[in-house]
């Protein structure tokens, strides 16, 4: 089920990125502008009283938090909030991988600590 995928993948680090990304007024504004539109980084930069590099940095923070994706389009880099199908599939399968890797780790731990005979199998709750 997905809830534990979410729990497994929403590490503190991921939440920190998201929190950090949304904590800045310029970044929230950039995010709003990208909904339903795909502005290039240079077009975004024209609208803010800051350098191209500074806007680019803001976009990178949004990207790291998974809120936008950048896509090369000719010489421009378009910023979008609605990632394409391949990007979505990659994201979903990455999450699935994280969840199953964590499960396999827990399986290995159980196999290492439990003897093969059933009567010695620790009951649930013993190690909590």
């Amino acid at each position, binding site marked *: *089920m*997905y*809830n*534990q*995928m*979410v*729990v*497994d*993948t*929403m590490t503190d680090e*991921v*939440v920190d990125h*998201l*929190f950090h990304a*949304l904590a800045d007024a310029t970044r929230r504004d950039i995010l709003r502008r990208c909904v339903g539109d795909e502005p290039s980084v240079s077009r975004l930069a024209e609208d803010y009283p800051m350098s191209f590099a500074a806007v680019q940095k803001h976009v990178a923070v949004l990207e790291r938090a*998974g809120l936008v994706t950048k896509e090369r389009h000719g010489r421009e880099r378009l910023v979008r909030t609605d990632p394409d*199908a*391949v990007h*979505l*599939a*990659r*994201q*979903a*399968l*990455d*999450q*699935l*991988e994280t969840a*199953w*890797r*964590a*499960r*396999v*780790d*827990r*399986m*290995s731990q*159980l*196999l*290492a600590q*439990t003897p*093969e005979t*059933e009567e010695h*199998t620790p*009951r*649930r709750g013993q190690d*909590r």
Partner: protein
Amino acid sequence: MSVTSVDKDFDRLTLTLIADFDAPIERVWQLWADPRQLERWWGPPSHPATVENHDLTPGGEITYFMTSPEGEKYRGWWRVASVSPPKSIEFTDGFANDDGTPNVDMPTTTVRMQLSQHDRGSRMELRSVFDSREHMEQLLHMGAAEGLRQAVGQMDALLAS
């Protein structure tokens, strides 16, 4: 590391994972077949699983819930498509309503697990498929929503401190 390979097929929305364990097949099988063992690895330590029904037969159902640190219960179910002890299981995994019945509006994934002898231990091949692209996107959106919820929760905690 017990995971020896991972393959992702973006067109078929399929994850294939191979893991090797230093234990006989029958022992690894018990991790799936014994509900008390299943609940020790299915959910993450922060959200331990409790298996309520465990009918590992073709057409049978497994129902479970996971408990969050706040005491919130997330219910889920498996429907077993095929099972061949101690070698393979195929099942659909989905969300359940509060009474444990499958919530058909929610996304499902299909899992196939196969065990084989490998060296002196066992090899587990696991294939997990999103049942449709819509299901996959729905799950991603739920993940994003959950992330936002957690971020907002952190904000509340910060403001309260």
